[in-house]
């Protein structure tokens, strides 16, 4: 007997994510899901933003890694409230993982919450985890073809941060080609160059994030899994 289903594989995840989102939104917590390949500069980006928000607003970080808590330790050493999720092999964060760790965190109302996803441009794009927005971090060292190869990581992100801009000449980064691919995958996403070591560009990114925080009332859209 044929049974019609038409159900998204990750529907359970999506329901949990929606509940997380509503819980955070009700407390004025703004959650940013940070995507990017390994070594793109996700942790450096968060560090730069945290330095600028210090004393102004509460901020917490959830660090996702397959294994190790190196990033969490370095963030804590800087006085940043950081929590580790070790997925033990899973290549993305999902909503149940976020739900579990939020239960162990004491987030202040009105906080910024940065969630650093696993270094990977593929499956993290397939999951909503309760965030308001995704942003994608790409370093020029990864090459200018990334929006063509991993369109969803860009398509589902509200902004793109282009890191290591000082390496453009050294690695022969073709910015026009990159931006052309980005325009096709994510026509509305602005690009923010950021030097994660010096912090150059972080003010512009933060100004945009403040705007997104003020404007964004709805959760990050679901990844179109159903027809």
């Amino acid at each position: 007997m044929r049974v019609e289903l038409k159900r998204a594989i990750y529907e359970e995840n999506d329901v949990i994510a929606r509940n997380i989102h509503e819980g955070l939104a009700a407390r004025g917590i703004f959650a940013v899901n940070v995507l990017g390949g390994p070594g793109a500069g996700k942790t450096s980006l968060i560090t730069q933003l945290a330095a600028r928000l210090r004393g102004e607003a509460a901020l917490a970080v959830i660090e996702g890694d397959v294994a190790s808590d190196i990033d969490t330790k370095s963030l804590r050493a800087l006085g940043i409230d950081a929590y580790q999720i070790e997925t033990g092999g899973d290549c993305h964060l999902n909503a149940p993982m976020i739900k579990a760790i939020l239960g162990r965190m004491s987030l202040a109302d009105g906080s910024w919450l940065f969630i650093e996803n696993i270094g990977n441009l593929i499956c993290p794009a397939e999951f909503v985890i309760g965030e308001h927005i995704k942003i994608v971090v790409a370093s020029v060292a990864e090459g200018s073809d990334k929006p063509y190869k991993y369109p969803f990581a860009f398509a589902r992100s509200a902004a793109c941060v282009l890191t290591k801009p000082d390496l453009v000449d050294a690695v022969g980064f073709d910015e026009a080609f990159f931006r052309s691919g980005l325009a096709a995958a994510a026509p509305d996403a602005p690009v923010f160059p950021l030097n994660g070591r010096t912090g150059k560009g972080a003010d512009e990114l933060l100004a945009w994030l403040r705007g997104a925080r003020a404007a964004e009332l709805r959760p990050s859209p679901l990844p179109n899994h159903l027809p």
Partner: protein
Amino acid sequence: MHEASAAEALVKMVSAEAVARKAARVSRIRLVVGEATGYMRESLEFYVAASARGSLAEGAILEIRYVKPLVRCPSCGLEFERRRFSFECPACGCQGVMTKAGSEFYIDSMEIEAPA
């Protein structure tokens, strides 16, 4: 690795549906996958078979229908399949934008067998 958690979620969903309908087993699962999601046929088959062991979906045939990613040209309106490393419209040369087609990932239907 990417396909393992998907396979688990899929098996959990069809098994629960089969239990709710008092089926003896699930004989076929029809899955729709957008090609741009990067879920590979061989991996899905491998992990679904492994996850289904001991469940009502054990031994079910997995039928996967892949959907080509479509790009739409904002100037001439043509919808076309992407070429490698390009979003360019084959008709007018403008830069296309991605559509929903190619991002699917859902169970379309399944076949269940009633108890003997």
